[in-house]
Each structure stands twice: as structure tokens, then as C-alpha cells.
């Protein structure tokens, strides 16, 4: 039995080594042809077609197609501008395109992912491809969903990207990180379409049929990416919110105000949320008031240093420290609070004074 296992392992290893050697040879064979293609004037159709046909002649198996795709992507990641577009165009050559398109119809997850990954990188995507990819947003595998959404986010039509993002957001069980990454991809930096993207994002945020947890991620990511024109819209949302409304949305709105450094929101946030029964909201509020830098928040923050929750108290102390000299004064004047909070405040004051002495 053990001899059989050893033999199998040796055979598999040999097979793998042969495969690697073949790929390396093929890559070396294709490299000069691809570089030559890269150097051609795209308006010279005859030469471009000849170069494409030279490459196609060397693509005999599915493995060859993979080598070409890997090679082109390897170069694409390192170059910009017209040359990058040229290589993305090369990826559309017939045998590769046909193979990857066929994979989109497969039932095997790895085929679907490989197919979608290909369409992330090509240009001139066609409507029949979209028809194949859109249903994959409902696939049970989160990996397939992720690569399918990434492929659609390579499209230049914002409405199409928005439709896909909304479809993703309607699903539950997507991790915050995965959704956050997808919003970054939705914001396709290759196209300058921030205003149109804002319209799509607003439509998702305002849609109450989208799970709150996903709406809250969209709100956070909008602020993290820096859609500046969304700041007023989110501020208005806070104005219209009741304290009884969903806490997770409120938390992300408060976070967003901090990220946008929307100083005028400090008063509204303090008034609405300083006595919220939700600890996470109060913690986020303390952090945000520190970021906003509005010294009018000092009385609220001083009040929060005696909050029932330790996490809120600590954040309030750090927020005061972030407000500069008036905040330090408040920290110095903190008397009669519990030992731990007093210790943190004293430690911050000591650090500040050491820093000042060094500067002097």
C-alpha cells in the first residue's frame, strides 16, 4: 500500500514538474510575440492582425491559453495607458474569449471563477457576457459572487455596475470586508464617474428592502472612499432619523461624518446620540467628536467621561485629547472620576507635556 502511495506521489510530482516546464517554455515562446504586439501601432490593422494570428498559431491547448492570459496579466499589472489597453484588447483574441465565455456556463465553481476573472480584465465587454454573469451574483459560492461582481464592475456603464451592486447588497450573509472591497471595485477609478456613482449609491442606501447591515457598510465605504458630495446627503439622513431607528445605520452615519470631517455635524450628533441606549453608537460618537475637532463638543465629551460603559469613557478621554489645548484643559480639570479613567487622562497629559518640552 505504502509503495503504491509513494509511486503515486512520485508520478504526480513528475507530472507537475513536466507541466511547469511546459508552461515556462510556452511562456518564453509567447513573450517576444506579446512584447512585439505591445509595440505595434493599433491603427495599423494589418500588422496587428498578423501579430494576433502569430500568437493564435501557438495556442494549441487550454493550457496554452492559460499561459497567454497569465503572461498578459503579468504585464498589464506593470504598465499603464495605451499599452495597457492594447494588452487588454489582446486578451480578447478568439480562442481565449471562446474558452472563457464557455466557462461562464459551466456548473463547476473553479470554471465560473476563472471565467469571471478573465472578464474582469478584458475590454469591449458584450451584452451576452453580462447576461451570463449577472445570474452568478446569486450563486451560492461567495467566491463566485465576488468574481462575478468584480467582472461587472469593470464595465464603464455606471447603471450596470449599480444594478449589480444592489443585487449583491440584497443578499444576506456577505461579510463586511467582502462588501467593502466590492464597493471599492464599483468605484472604478479608470472612469471619472463619481457623480453617477453617487446616484446609484444613494438609491441603495435609501432602499429599505436592502438589509440594514449591508446599507450600513455602503454608508461606511462611501465615506472611506471619499464621495464628498454624499456628505450633505448623509447629514440630512441623520437629521431625519429617529433615535429608535436602526442602530447599525446610525453608527455608520456617525462614522461617516467623522470620515468626512463634517465639523458642523458635531452639534447634531451630540444632541441626537449622546444619551443613546446603544453602547456602540455612543462609542462611535465619542470617536467622531474627537475627529471633528469642534471644541463645542467638550461639555458633551466631559459628560461622556462618566458614561456607564468603560469603552465610551476611554474614547471620550481620547477624543478630548484630540481637540487640542481646550481639550487638554478639560482633561487636566478631570477630578473625581474613577481611577482608571483618571490614570489614562493623566498619562495623556504627561505625554503631551513631554512632547511640548521636546519641542521647546
Amino acid at each position: 500500500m505504502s509503495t503504491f502511495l509513494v509511486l503515486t506521489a512520485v508520478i504526480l510530482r513528475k507530472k507537475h514538474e513536466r507541466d511547469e516546464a511546459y508552461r515556462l517554455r510556452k511562456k518564453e515562446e509567447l513573450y517576444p510575440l506579446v512584447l512585439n504586439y505591445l509595440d505595434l501601432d493599433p491603427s495599423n490593422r494589418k500588422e496587428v492582425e498578423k501579430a494576433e494570428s502569430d500568437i493564435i498559431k501557438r495556442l494549441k491547448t487550454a493550457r496554452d491559453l492559460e499561459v497567454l492570459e497569465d503572461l498578459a496579466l503579468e504585464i498589464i499589472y506593470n504598465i499603464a495607458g495605451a499599452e495597457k489597453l492594447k494588452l487588454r484588447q489582446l486578451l480578447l483574441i478568439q480562442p481565449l474569449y471562446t474558452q472563457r465565455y464557455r466557462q461562464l456556463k459551466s456548473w463547476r465553481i473553479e470554471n465560473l471563477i476563472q471565467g469571471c476573472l478573465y472578464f474582469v480584465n478584458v475590454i469591449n465587454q458584450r451584452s451576452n457576457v453580462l447576461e451570463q454573469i449577472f445570474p452568478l451574483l446569486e450563486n451560492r459560492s461567495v467566491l463566485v459572487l465576488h468574481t462575478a461582481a468584480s467582472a461587472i464592475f469593470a464595465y464603464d456603464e455606471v447603471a450596470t455596475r449599480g444594478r449589480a451592486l444592489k443585487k449583491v447588497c440584497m443578499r444576506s450573509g456577505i461579510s463586511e470586508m467582502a462588501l467593502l472591497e466590492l464597493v471599492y471595485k464599483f468605484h472604478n477609478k479608470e472612469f471619472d464617474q463619481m457623480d453617477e456613482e453617487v446616484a446609484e449609491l444613494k438609491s441603495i442606501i435609501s432602499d429599505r428592502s436592502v438589509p440594514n447591515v449591508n446599507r450600513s457598510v455602503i454608508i461606511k465605504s462611501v465615506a472611506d472612499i471619499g464621495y464628498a458630495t454624499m456628505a450633505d446627503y448623509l447629514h440630512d439622513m441623520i437629521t431625519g432619523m429617529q433615535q429608535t431607528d436602526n442602530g447599525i445605520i446610525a453608527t455608520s452615519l456617525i462614522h461617516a461624518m467623522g470620515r468626512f470631517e463634517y465639523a458642523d455635524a458635531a452639534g447634531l450628533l451630540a444632541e441626537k446620540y449622546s444619551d443613546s441606549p446603544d453602547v456602540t453608537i455612543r462609542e462611535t460618537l465619542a470617536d467622531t467628536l474627537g475627529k471633528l475637532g469642534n471644541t463645542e463638543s467638550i461639555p458633551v465629551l466631559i459628560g461622556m467621561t462618566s458614561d456607564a460603559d468603560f469603552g465610551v469613557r476611554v474614547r471620550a478621554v481620547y477624543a478630548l485629547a484630540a481637540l487640542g489645548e481646550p481639550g487638554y484643559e478639560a482633561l487636566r480639570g478631570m477630578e473625581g472620576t474613577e481611577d482608571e479613567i483618571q490614570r489614562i487622562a493623566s498619562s495623556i497629559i504627561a505625554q503631551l507635556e513631554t512632547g511640548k518640552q521636546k519641542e521647546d
Partner: protein
Amino acid sequence: MPVYFIYFLFLLNLTLMSGNNPLILIIEDNPSVIRLLEFKLAKENFRFEHRDNGPDGIEAVKKLRPDLVVLDVMLPGFDGFEVLRQIRQDAQIRETRVMMLTSKNMEDDLERVFSMGAMEFMSKPFKLGEFMIRLKRILN
């Protein structure tokens, strides 16, 4: 016979001409970037060499005395800044012209790039045409 003689003269001329062409030393560990740059340099008849780490790169600068070093910031062993520092501290090679390759998210380090004595930089991913223009500008 005269045909062979003319051919010999032609080859000799090519060899002598390429000997006068500027020598570019690429210190970069990404094989794909090396191939791209070498392809572009070969097209324009530059001579080139490459090294894939800092220590070998410095040795090559001393030995080959290139007309220009194209130096990547992120290198195994020690980084491009350290290579540049060592070049600038060595009296024999301190005049070497250096062009740094940085990554997009290192744009805050540009001040450091120039203050340490690099003459030019390119942030990756880059346009090959622009790379050649900047390279020729330094050489001229």
C-alpha cells in the same frame, strides 16, 4: 569576396556603434518589469544589464559604470533608498545618474527620492513611452 568584406565592415560598424550607446543598469526584482524595460531599451539600441537585488546592484554600478541606473525602491535584501545612499556615499560612483521606480502609494516619498539624489522617478504601473522620454531626458 567584396560582399563578405562589406558585410564584415557592416558588422564591425554595428559593434562599434553599440559600444558607444549608453549603458543602462536596471536594479529590479520583478522579472516582468525587467523584460519590458529591456525590450524597450533594445528597440532603441541602448545597452543594458540587470541585477535583481541591492548588493549585486551596487557591485554592478562599481564594475560597469553605467550611464544610468534604473532603481526599484522595493528590493529584497535592502531597499532602493539604501542602494542610492551607498551610491552617493562612494566617491567613485557618486556621480552616477539614478532614476527611481516607485509604486503609486509611495508618492509621499518623492521628496525623499529627490533629496537623496535621484534625478528622476517613475511610479509603477508606468507608461513605457513616458519611461523612455524621461530616460533620454536624463541622458541628455
